[in-house]
């Protein structure tokens, strides 16, 4: 018996590893229509509603001396404003892009965190839609920021970097074009998507292996179940960290791209 290879038959006796099908569950509502909802979509809607409601409650009746809930929301907003936007963009440009960056941060955070919430257990951003849409928004934002500032300077900085001998532009310009206008949105999408996919697959692997070891494995293997259970819990905590970190990284990369676009020269 090879424990590493997913078995064809799911009879409970052989170990079945998680597959990519995890992320494409059966439709729940409105099957066959364009508004078809499956578990991922329901989780996304739930996360969005949770975000809106929490933000609304947190900022509904703001006091000079904040209550406990308001201070938590304020801490999050302050972290984005001071730690990310104003730190990288400065106060003037920061004010313009703060709503966008803050929205991206909290949206990614709430989409990611559903991956570790019990009963939901699947991140809203673990199917390509959410990361792709956010990456496109970030892409439009940094091009808009650059073109608004000065179209000539933006494309000159992006495609014809200063300090390069003119002959080398034959090589440098295509590389700069690919890295700025193609690699950036692709990596933004893939980074978030793959982090969430891998995180979910790891958790499924740990907990399904635990079930298998305890219930179906030969007696000699049962002790492994304790190990996979412990690691499952450890990785659950690790996934909370990953969710926060990826939201932070997505927000900070969007900010950096905008910063590079509005920079005078770099």
């Amino acid at each position: 018996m090879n424990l590493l290879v997913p078995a064809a038959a799911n009879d409970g006796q052989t170990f079945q590893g998680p597959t990519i099908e995890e992320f494409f569950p059966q439709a729940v509502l409105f099957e066959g229509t364009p508004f078809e909802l499956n578990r991922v979509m329901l989780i996304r809607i739930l996360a969005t509603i949770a975000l809106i409601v929490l933000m609304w409650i947190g900022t509904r009746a703001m006091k000079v001396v904040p209550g406990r809930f308001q201070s938590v929301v304020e801490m999050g907003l302050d972290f984005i404003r001071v730690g990310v936007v104003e730190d990288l963009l400065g106060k003037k440009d920061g004010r313009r892009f703060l709503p966008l960056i803050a929205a991206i941060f909290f949206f990614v955070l709430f989409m990611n965190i559903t991956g570790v919430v019990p009963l939901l257990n699947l991140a809203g951003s673990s199917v390509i839609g959410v990361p792709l849409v956010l990456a496109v928004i970030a892409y439009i934002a940094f091009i808009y920021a650059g073109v608004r500032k000065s179209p000539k300077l933006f494309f000159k900085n992006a495609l014809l970097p200063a300090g390069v001998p003119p002959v080398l532009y034959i090589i440098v310009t295509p590389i700069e074009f690919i890295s700025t206008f193609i690699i950036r949105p692709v990596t933004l999408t893939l980074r978030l998507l793959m982090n969430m996919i891998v995180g979910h697959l790891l958790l499924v692997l740990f907990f399904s292996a635990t079930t298998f070891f305890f219930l179906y494995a030969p007696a000699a293997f049962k002790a492994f179940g304790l190990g996979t259970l412990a690691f499952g819990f450890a990785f659950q905590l690790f996934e909370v960290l990953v969710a926060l970190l990826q939201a932070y990284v997505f927000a900070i990369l969007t900010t950096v791209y905008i910063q590079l676009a509005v920079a005078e020269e770099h």
Partner: protein
Amino acid sequence: MDIAAISGNIATVGYGLAAIGPAIGVGIVVGKTIEGVARQPELSSRLQTLMWIGIAFTEALAFIGIATYYIFTS
């Protein structure tokens, strides 16, 4: 049972290879940041921001490595 027999997809080995580079890269980024903070503790928040950006860029290669598995096996 033949212990040496391996079944499954060669792409998993490919991901293993793709993970080596970013692993070394992230190690260097974090290590250098720690060095920088040890020399100049007052810059730690600025250095940390740069560290996360550096990690994000380095890490991207590993995630492209994972993605290829899904692209080329379908």
